[in-house]
């Protein structure tokens, strides 16, 4: 019964995530940027733009320029989360890919970086007047959700181990459309339930910044307006 419920929950969450993000990306891709608005320092070639975006994604270049504390906590959280996620691939792959094996030890400690970063970001929302002013309840809840996911996961790793073999059987089963038994460990169920919530709200919350940032015209445009004429389809209509 519980296994079926969680199986359905994860199918639904995956569908929400994939379809939701897909729809958002389609919307962003379909809306034209009518004007060239790259912001300085703007690369003059496509390759330059790729490099710029790479630096934004890999080291949060602009955030670093902006504010070292937000950068530090934000970077700890994101890198921590990335490593933890990579580590989790072992619950979905059989045999486990070699690089997933390789990342395991890092992934374990990355969870500390992740929650430390989240705690830092959350502290800022309480302690700084400016941050308090711009924060909505959803901004706090998002951090609470991520922290709860992080802590519940760490609890299972470091305090009370769950039957991870069974969990893996459950998830690899889901990928072949079989529903196997999921251990009824309350911490595990909490962890998974929160992850499913995160997946569901991903496309309809600020989490959409992850794919969205690639569509930011001020960052993804090539600075070549004098050399190459840029024209949106609806603007071309005005010329008829």
């Amino acid at each position: 019964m519980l296994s079926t419920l969680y199986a359905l929950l994860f199918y639904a969450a995956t569908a929400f995530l994939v379809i939701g993000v897909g729809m958002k990306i389609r919307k962003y891709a379909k809306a034209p940027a009518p004007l060239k608005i790259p912001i300085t320092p703007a690369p003059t070639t496509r390759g330059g733009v790729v490099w710029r975006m790479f630096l934004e994604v890999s080291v949060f270049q602009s955030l670093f320029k902006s504010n070292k504390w937000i950068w530090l906590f934000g970077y700890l959280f994101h890198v921590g989360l990335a490593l933890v996620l990579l580590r989790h691939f072992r619950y979905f792959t059989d045999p486990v890919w070699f690089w997933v094996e390789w990342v395991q030890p890092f992934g374990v400690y990355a969870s500390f970086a992740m929650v430390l970063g989240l705690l830092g970001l959350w502290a800022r929302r309480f302690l700084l007047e400016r941050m308090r002013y711009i924060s909505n309840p959803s901004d706090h809840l998002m951090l609470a959700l991520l922290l709860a996911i992080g802590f519940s996961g760490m609890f299972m790793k470091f305090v009370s181990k769950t039957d991870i073999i069974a969990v893996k059987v459950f998830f690899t089963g889901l990928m072949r459309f079989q529903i196997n038994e999921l251990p009824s460990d309350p911490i595990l169920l909490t962890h998974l339930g929160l992850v499913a919530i995160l997946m569901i709200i991903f496309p309809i919350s600020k989490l959409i910044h992850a794919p969205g940032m690639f569509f930011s015209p001020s960052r993804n445009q090539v600075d070549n307006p004098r050399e190459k004429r840029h024209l949106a389809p609806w603007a071309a209509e005005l010329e008829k």
Partner: protein
Amino acid sequence: MADGNTEIPELKDALDIPCLKHGAMEGLEPYIASPDHQEALGFPGELVPDWKEKVLEKMAETAKKNRAFQVYLDTCVKCGACTDKCHFFLGTGDPKNMPVARQDLLRSVYRRYFTFAGKYFPWLVGARDLTEDVLHEWYSYYHQCSQCRRCSVFCPYGIDTAEITMAARDILASVGIGQKYSNEILGKVNKIGNNLGLPEKALRNTLEDLEEDIEDETGVSVRIPLDEKGADILLITPSADFFAEPHIDGLIGYAKVFHEAGVSWTVSSYASEAANFGMFIGSYENMREVSLRIRKAAQDLGVKRIVFGECGHAWRVAYSFLNTLAGPFDFLDQNYPVPQHILEFTWDEIQKGTLNLDKSKNDHIRLTYHDSCNVARGTRMGDTPGGQFEIPRNVIKSVCNYYFDMDRDTTHESTLCCGGGGGLLTDDLMDLRVKGAAPRMTAMQQVTEDHGVTHLAAICAICKSQFSKVLPKYGYDMEAILSVHQLVSNAIILKGQETDDDEDLPATAEA
């Protein structure tokens, strides 16, 4: 909010972060455009009865037509990186002048009507209903943004508040609430050809007077041609260059450079304006109308090149948008950039050695340079990234011995706005302008303390006008603001010019 009552902000440092002063700038509104000014631009004369539906329709349309609007409203995570980046926040302390808070004024309504969370859980995501009060709040705070884009540089996703401000102003104008200052000016450009409403005859007289002035001063006949068919270069310059100080000294500088370079050039009375307030009001159609005048003038006069004078947002519209709005310019000489900036032209001539420059003519000036926001963050000069910073400095250093940069955190791509850009250069916003200038003025005061800087040079008509108003509030002479080409003009020794070293220098003091 009268001019005299403005409390001058005292900042310890140019980027000193103030404590929040809730409501400090609440209710500040520039005059609303009259029905005549609205209708001339294709907007309704006054607030339409079904404004609510119309606003929401316009928002949906903007999201479809402009990717930036949609992406920027969706992706903000409220990280706070931008909160201390706006000069208007630094100068006023009003939390709604923090870039993210300014965006949220519109984002909160967008969420309420266009997102799942906002429709069903408005309290959770700070969504709110659209009311007439909200419209007025928009009108107030979207006219406390100079569209300088400093926040965008520091945003991890490049969210550009200027795009939101432009969209908000466009939405407001489309339901009948336009800004008097910008819309009235656009009307003049469309009717007469320039922001001042200076007709052809008056313009001709002004330019002839200027020619006489140059000849009196130098003994050389330097022409400032108007509507000369067959000239090689069409100069498009802000109309402030025809009458305001120190702008006009810049125009004299361009004329001397063209004269020494031996090129034929002309000003057009039909397109006697580089500024394009269509950008300020966020209207693509209006921006296009103004731009098309330049295309028509270039075709009618049969020129081969277009060169733009010193003007910040004009250079953004010219460099980044002109090809889009009024291109393709395949009828112009493709060996030159289309369009070209006067500083690119002058720097080329300096490198070629065409200009005879005597730097010592500017020795009474200890100079710093204000990177105009639109030039710094929205354009380029020359062939390489960063040319918009290097070329003006190269020219300045070629004509001036004493040059000192301000704090690097307030120059180049991090430059602070003068406080008067983006359609705010109007007396009804003087209080805001003075406060918004505080960070820039503080950075200048620092180089005055450290290096004895006396003057500030700029390449933007709005910066020049704004600084001549606010410099006195911060302890400088109103003539401490200079055009870069005014410095060039001071230093150029024209061919055949009688030089008399005993004579007073043609300095700013005469202005």
